[in-house]
């Protein structure tokens, strides 16, 4: 959920290893098998989805394996409504990333660096916003939009997504701010840099990994959200909403193709992350 979970560069040494070696007897590492078994369970539906994106189904129901085809990849964009839903999802996620990234960074900076009146209250509200159930957030926002006579749609969705992402970004940035050495900023000021120059040339570059991690988290949370979006999106359809809508009539194989492509993006990001972590070491 934060930078140090994704890239635990500061991992302390591996415990308990020398002790076992000293005992000289090699035990079977059940924990390894167990962990891989759970991982296999986590990947099972993904495997199904990827496999069936290559399936050539007989009827509307893409459930049993019929034969290999690349047809759905060639016609990945055959459903205009699906493309529109995908476009909505990505553009909403990008807007959410930018706005909640900006607001959350400022909030995280303030919480990590300064003491001010209302800090405890801010923490409490953030905590509540993170732990409140999605149904409650969606229902509450819809109630407000209804009472104020605001028509729900694209922009109310963006507003809602920014609302539930801000706190996640702020926490990620705050964790980084706390570990920064304030003397670096003082040194910059001693060298004649004004507050804005200091921020731009010293503070922001040091914060950047956390801002990036927070932003990506916001993007991921936004593009995946179904529950809050159903309440506040009105007539606008996003990718999860479109999938949901087609479950009753049979999901077209193109959905599996889109899912597989999204998964590939995740794999690429993960590989980049691992390579970067290696290089830093």
């Amino acid at each position: 959920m934060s930078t140090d979970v994704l890239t635990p560069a500061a991992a302390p040494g591996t415990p308990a290893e020398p002790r076992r070696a000293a005992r000289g007897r090699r035990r079977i590492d059940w924990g390894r098998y167990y962990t891989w078994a759970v991982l296999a369970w986590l990947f099972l539906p993904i495997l199904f989805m990827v496999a069936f994106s290559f399936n050539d189904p007989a009827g509307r129901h893409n459930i049993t394996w019929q034969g290999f085809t690349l047809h759905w990849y060639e016609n990945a964009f055959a459903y205009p409504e699906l493309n529109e839903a995908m476009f909505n999802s990505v553009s909403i996620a990008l807007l959410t990333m930018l706005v909640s990234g900006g607001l959350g960074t400022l909030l995280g900076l303030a919480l990590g660096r300064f003491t001010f009146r209302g800090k405890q209250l801010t923490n409490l509200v953030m905590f509540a916003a993170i732990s409140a159930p999605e149904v409650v957030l969606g229902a509450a926002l819809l109630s407000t939009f209804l009472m104020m006579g605001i028509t729900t749609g694209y922009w109310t969705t963006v507003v809602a997504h920014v609302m539930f992402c801000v706190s996640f970004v702020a926490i990620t940035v705050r964790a980084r701010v706390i570990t920064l050495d304030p003397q670096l900023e003082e040194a910059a000021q001693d060298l004649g840099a004004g507050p804005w120059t200091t921020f731009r040339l010293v503070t922001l570059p040091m914060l950047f990994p956390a801002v990036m991690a927070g932003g990506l988290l916001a993007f991921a949370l936004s593009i995946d959200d179904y529950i809050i979006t159903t309440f506040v999106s009105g007539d606008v359809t996003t990718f999860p909403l479109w999938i949901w809508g087609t479950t009753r009539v049979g999901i077209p194989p193109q959905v599996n193709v889109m899912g597989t492509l999204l998964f590939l993006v995740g794999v690429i990001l993960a590989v980049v992350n691992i390579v970067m972590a290696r290089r830093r070491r």
Partner: protein
Amino acid sequence: MRNRKITPYALVLPAWAWLALFFVVPIGGMLSLSLTTGNVITGFQQSFAVGNYVDAVSTYWEQILRSLFYGACATLLCIAIGYPMAYWIAFKGGPYKSTYLLLILLPFFVSFVLRTISWRFLLSDNGVVLGPLKSMGLLSEGFALLNSAPAVILGLAYNFLPFMVLPIYAVLERMDPRMVEAAHDLYAGRFQAFVRVILPVSLPGVFAGVLMTFIPTSSDYVNASVLGGTHNTMIGNIIQTQYLINNNYPIASSITFVLMGLLLIGIFSYARALGTERVMEVHA
């Protein structure tokens, strides 16, 4: 610095405004809506009557209890599955710790809805999992998993497992391995060292995990809709139907408030015991 005093307020103001306008105010708005009477055609009048709450609870107590029960089962399952995994990665993961964590998070790049629907196909009566077992004669022909309570609980545990693994991992990873060595030096066996040293240290992580799995699982309705059929609906299903299909806003908002009230009691007693800062720390 001259403007040291104003700076923090300038920094927090935009986020404050956003959270106040779109989180705090809406919760208040929903409270006021839950105390109205009327319907979509005649409009809603603020009556400050608590009748909606009485109606909501007496009509839907079954779904409320079922939601809390499913949430509790899924949370326990997450602890049972997730704790050993977090433990192994934290202590034995070596240089691959971050890789394992990424592998846990990777399935989440695929849409939550899409993954849950995939489970529906996997668990279907003659699907990829049950089909072969049935044709081998290991299961009777009539055996079904779909549209049952276990299917919903399994789906919930599946979807929220990382929220249990990550906080437990975070506390175990920060633990000084010398504490375990010290326990061994004091003649504690593996079991004793675990119960007396590792388990107490990891408890804040487990609590954070419980918070992060129990709240979303007990208020989820996607799993109940996709995997539970018509007989295993949860309170989220009711809220969604009342809001978006029946447009019965007073009842819908009062039932939402009941759900939030039940969960808030848990959250705040927990936050009081540990302090919000620490809870958030484990979250992050």
